[in-house]
């Protein structure tokens, strides 16, 4: 199927009344929950997951994608108005975005973010439409060795981009792999780490763990500094960028989009990397680098464009290889599996309506965001200022119901409580959970691909180095590891990541 007939199929799928409606609902709910301070995309998606359960697969996926964009965009609104980044990738948005808000230019900062995001979203969607079919057919030629190396690259990228030390991140990833091994071993049928409990035979539900660590863990951490929470929300006045703003943000949006599209495909943590590098790039090429950090509109437009472009293109490894690039994508895979869909290269040939419907609704979702967010910004600002002591019991209830409804099993609720406590301690111990989450879903895949590789090669591990693609991937992974030793990269990493906490 060529791209045009694909897109037409996609349009006919995405614009059926119910799919369109659920896309809209997803974007609206995603933004509404995403603007709430302290709720990143992972917590937002897991809270809103039950809303997709009764739906047909394509509608559910479209709505999930809508929730994902909405929560991303809601996160930047909170970052600009309140100086509270919902997740690491919107940290850079706070630097200039909140500075602009303090100068009374909140509306223009929000508009710059919205326009940048929309443009980037459009380009990102086109990029998916063009490259995903190519990559998917290419991916069908991948053997287990290539897959294993790609997984290693993904895990290493997520470790390098985690805040805190590399050693800690490595430990967290290993811990995630062990958690992923709980349950029945698909190859031998042996029950591993189940402690005799039938509830563990199917393994830990990934959504339950992510909800516990990110949803409940964040609540527990936020409750601690409840008194210290700043409740100042900047007022929003004029939403229209001035002629000068347009001139200043045009090129940065283009550059940010380019960077984001390319980096988003990288397994690991492309979205985060995209927004940081876009900001760094703008600061470098700008004629007014001294304005950065003091409310430069370029510093909002470029990272937001990069952020959103990467958020689109990070669907590519997930849809074509079945490998999640970020913790959020891992959660999306978890949600798809709940729906009975196994992402991978076959998805495009076996369920073309699902794939193209998703691609088109991504673009529609971005369009809706543009028209939804700017007019409704007053409402979002009100939502942001809801005091936390009203908010957190509601969050607890929603995540508890959400987790229970995945399997209608109270065991998942207890598990979520346990992982909430663990998530809190990880935060206290300076250990970022993102590598753990990613490793939990990638670990079992890594084991399976390793097993197949070694079975084919009769136990000879050098195949990882003799396959050119696998070798190339491992070299990139090695370079990434080496780069962290370089003092210059180290400094940038520390500067960029420490504020993410």
């Amino acid at each position, binding site marked *: 199927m060529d791209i045009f007939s694909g897109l037409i199929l996609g349009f006919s799928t995405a614009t059926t009344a119910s799919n369109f409606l659920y896309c809209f609902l997803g974007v609206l709910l995603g933004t509404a929950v995403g603007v709430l301070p302290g709720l990143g995309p992972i917590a937002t998606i897991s809270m809103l997951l*039950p809303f997709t359960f009764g739906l047909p697969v394509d509608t559910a996926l479209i709505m999930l994608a809508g929730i994902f964009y909405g929560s991303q965009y809601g996160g930047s609104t909170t970052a600009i108005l309140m100086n509270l980044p919902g997740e690491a990738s919107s940290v850079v948005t706070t630097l200039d975005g909140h500075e602009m808000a303090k100068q009374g230019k909140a509306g223009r900062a929000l508009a710059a973010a919205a326009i940048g995001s929309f443009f980037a979203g459009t380009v990102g969607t086109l990029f998916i439409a063009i490259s995903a079919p190519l990559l998917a057919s290419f991916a069908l030629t991948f053997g287990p060795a290539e897959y294993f190396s790609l997984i290693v690259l993904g895990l290493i990228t997520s470790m390098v981009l985690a805040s805190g030390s590399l050693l800690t991140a490595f430990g967290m990833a290993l811990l995630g792999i062990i958690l992923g091994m709980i349950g029945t071993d698909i190859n031998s049928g042996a029950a591993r780490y189940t402690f005799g409990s039938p509830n563990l035979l199917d393994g830990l539900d990934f959504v339950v763990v992510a909800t516990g660590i990110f949803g409940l863990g964040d609540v527990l951490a936020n409750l601690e500094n409840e008194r210290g929470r700043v409740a100042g929300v900047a007022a929003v006045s004029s939403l229209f960028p001035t002629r000068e703003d347009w001139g200043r943000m045009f090129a940065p949006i283009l550059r940010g989009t380019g960077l984001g599209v390319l980096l988003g495909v990288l397994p690991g943590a492309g979205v985060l990397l995209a927004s940081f590098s876009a900001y760094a790039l703008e600061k470098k090429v700008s004629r007014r680098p001294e304005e950065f950090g003091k409310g430069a509109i370029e510093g909002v437009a470029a990272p937001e464009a990069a952020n959103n472009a990467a958020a689109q293109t990070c669907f590519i490894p997930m849809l074509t290889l079945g490998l999640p690039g970020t913790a959020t994508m891992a959660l999306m895979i978890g949600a798809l599996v709940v729906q009975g869909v196994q992402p991978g290269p076959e998805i495009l040939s076996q369920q073309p309506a699902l794939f193209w419907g998703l691609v088109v609704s991504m673009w529609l979702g971005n369009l809706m965001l543009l028209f939804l967010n700017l007019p409704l910004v007053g409402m979002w600002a009100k939502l942001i200022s809801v005091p936390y002591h009203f908010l957190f*019991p509601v969050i607890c209830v929603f995540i508890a119901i959400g987790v229970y409804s995945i399997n209608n099993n109270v065991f998942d609720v207890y598990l*979520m409580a346990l992982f909430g406590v663990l998530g809190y301690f990880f935060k206290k111990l300076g250990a970022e959970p993102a590598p753990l989450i990613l490793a939990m879903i990638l670990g079992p895949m890594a*084991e399976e691909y390793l097993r197949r590789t070694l079975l084919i090669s009769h136990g000879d591990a050098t195949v990882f180095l003799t396959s050119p693609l696998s070798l190339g991937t491992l070299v990139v992974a090695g370079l990434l590891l080496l780069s962290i030793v370089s003092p210059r990269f180290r400094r940038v990493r520390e500067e960029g990541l420490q504020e993410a906490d």
Partner: protein
Amino acid sequence: MKLSQDVLLGLFFTVIGAVSALIATHYPFGTSSRMGPGYFPIIVSGLLVVTGLLVLLRARLASSEPLPVIGWKPLVIVPAAIVIFGLVIEPLGLPLAVLLLTILSATTSVKFRLDWRAFAGSLVFAAFCSVLFVELLGLPVPIVGNWLQAVGSY
């Protein structure tokens, strides 16, 4: 050695790694060309033990961040409230479970006062959740739990 972030984290990694390696020794290890169910767990757990020991060593060599203050009250009450939610959702039904979870978790806030407003608010919220999740979204959660049904049938 003083308790610091790294000491605790190192201990945590080492203990989890050691326990999981110990359990994995009961699974057939296999050979490299035919990995048994114990092959991968032993390697990963072994690496985790080494990582844990390295983190401990790092704590020994350089002073790591001291342990931050732990807010025990929310840390105990909120997860306990969620466990209680799990315990009562099937026997008592969704509205009562929501009501309990809302009020119990809210008590951890410094701003919480148990007055009629808090109670009325959680009552409305419990009703809202029941309508939203059970009536509108059709989740198979009981509104009236099986204990209450049993009581009602007498």
